């Protein structure tokens, strides 16, 4: 009898399911945390920093300065297309690129197309409501010399419980005046993601 009752309790215990609890731990933003294996903030930051370092190490910055009386090239970040099989927020990646470019101090940087519209609205507003001394006039914007644009691509291979993710970020620097491609760079990341096949 005891044995039978024991079996029944074991079955009931198995059926019961697991208890859940929530815990929160704050971590440094630079700390690498990989949960699902998907593209994350660390990938975005590392790729942008490495690729900007690569583009700025090339001769085009000095070439431009020599040809323009020492003036730093003006760069704008265009579109980075998501051609991957993940919903990647390319806006945060573009922001990481912009940050890395500005912090380099080697190039000047202008606002993107979306941001320019808002600034122009503000200038129109100033023309009506700000004092003459402080209102900013039209036609004083700095035009960009180069546009940085690119795409994020993935190749995924998986079997049940395990997958290999290969990311390739391609960026190109294009001369706005001549359409000439000044630099093409890529950065690859490979991840192996294992998921436990069994769990209680």
């Amino acid at each position: 009898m005891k044995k039978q009752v024991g079996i029944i309790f074991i079955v009931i215990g198995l059926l019961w399911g697991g208890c859940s609890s929530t815990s929160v731990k704050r971590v440094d933003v630079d700390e690498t945390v990989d949960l699902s294996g998907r593209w994350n903030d660390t990938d975005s930051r590392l790729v942008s920093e490495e690729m900007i370092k690569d583009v700025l190490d090339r001769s085009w910055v000095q070439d431009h300065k020599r040809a323009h009386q020492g003036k730093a090239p003006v760069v704008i970040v265009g579109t980075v297309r998501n051609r991957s099989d993940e919903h990647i927020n390319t806006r945060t990646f573009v922001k990481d690129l912009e940050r890395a470019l500005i912090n380099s101090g080697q190039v000047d940087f202008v606002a993107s197309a979306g941001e320019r519209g808002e600034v122009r609205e503000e200038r129109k507003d100033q023309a009506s409501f700000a004092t003459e001394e402080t209102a900013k006039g039209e036609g004083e914007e700095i035009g960009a010399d180069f546009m940085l644009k690119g795409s994020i691509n993935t190749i995924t291979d998986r079997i049940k419980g395990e997958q290999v993710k290969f990311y390739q970020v391609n960026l190109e620097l294009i001369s706005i005046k001549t359409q000439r491609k000044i630099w093409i760079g890529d950065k690859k990341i490979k991840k192996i993601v294992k998921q436990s096949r069994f769990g209680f």
Partner: protein
Amino acid sequence: MIKMHKAVFALLMGFMISGCAAGFNHSQLNRYLETGECNRATAYVDQGRKSYGDNGELLYLLDSAMVYFQCQDFESAQSRFREAEDLAEKLWTESISRNIAAFAVSDNVLKYQGEDYERVLIHLVSAIGFLRAGRLDEALVECRRLDSLLSLFNATYEEKNVYKEDAFARYLSGMLHEADGELDDAFIDYYKAVRIYKDYAKAYGLSAPAVLEEDLLRVAQAVGRLDEARSVVPDSESRSWLTQSDTRAMGRVVYIQFSGFAPLKIQDRIIIPTRGGPVTVAFPRMVTAPPACRPGRLVLTSTEAGIEARIFPAEDINRIAVKSLNDRKGRVIAKTMVRAATKQVIISGLANQGDEEAQATIRLLLNMINLFVEQADTRTWRLLPGEIHVSRVYVPQGEYQVNLSLCDGDVRSLEKIRIAAGDTSFLFHDARYPCLTAGCRQ
């Protein structure tokens, strides 16, 4: 006394396992959607979350995602689709404890992990949701995810399943690539879509829409791969199609329609009389209800012209569902038979004391209880459509009233659109809930 304890324990177990929630009332939800009452529909599905039961979380996520999709709250719909996708993936990695219980009792003690075709269709509906929200890049991401998931299933089942690739998703992906100006990618997708439709014709009796074949021939000509295209469109010599330069000054309208409901699963029970009482086994079976009225034609009218376009069946979810269940019929039968045998072993173990008559009585009692406990898993994503239809037409730029000519000759007004040269306008309509996209008739 001992016998009483055993019976009580068995009864407790039976009730604990089979005592499921009352279930979600889909009829009420459908009424809200049919009458276009979105606020009520979204509130109803969210408030009814508990009715899906502890094991029905995935079904809640799928239903609520579809309701928000229908009600054009695409952000909420997509976040639920992502949750559903993650949960289904997680549940696919099996839980030992639940599977042991399922073998001993019923599949209903398992958390619902979704049929494979349902998991694939999460991506298809999500892609259409992104299209409706004007986010074409994200729609393409969903097409890629769909393809990746099907590859995973093919690798897992060693290509024994029929639903290996999704033809309509490929066609959609091709149209998106073409809208993006990526003609080489569009060609590959159109070409693959036509080939997959050949498999669809054998498996589901569904051939490639004529507009897809025309798209393939047109793009193939533009990228210099017409011979390859002709190899999969046998009557291409006698076909005429608009060339890429013909379409340059025109805009493209792509119309996607959901029709009817996906099949329901019902239970088939077999009761085998034995000396120890009735031994019960239960199997799921799909029951389809194809839409009574299939779409007729798409009619675009402007001040200068009236253009009609044929609407083609592009995805038969009813047949995909039936075939998918048939594909795994062997696994379902094996599991059910193992369960029936396991239960008989447990029942014999519980009824091994007392005299023969007492043992026979306990065995009979426990088998009677098993009549109620043994239930087939009949859970499905109830709000999926049964069929998807598509139309594609090139029109001169301008403003158009889009109408739908129905099978009974009636005409339903959909929406007004402005088409510019080179643009693609994606339109969506769900014939089950016309109030949501075409407005209610008074």
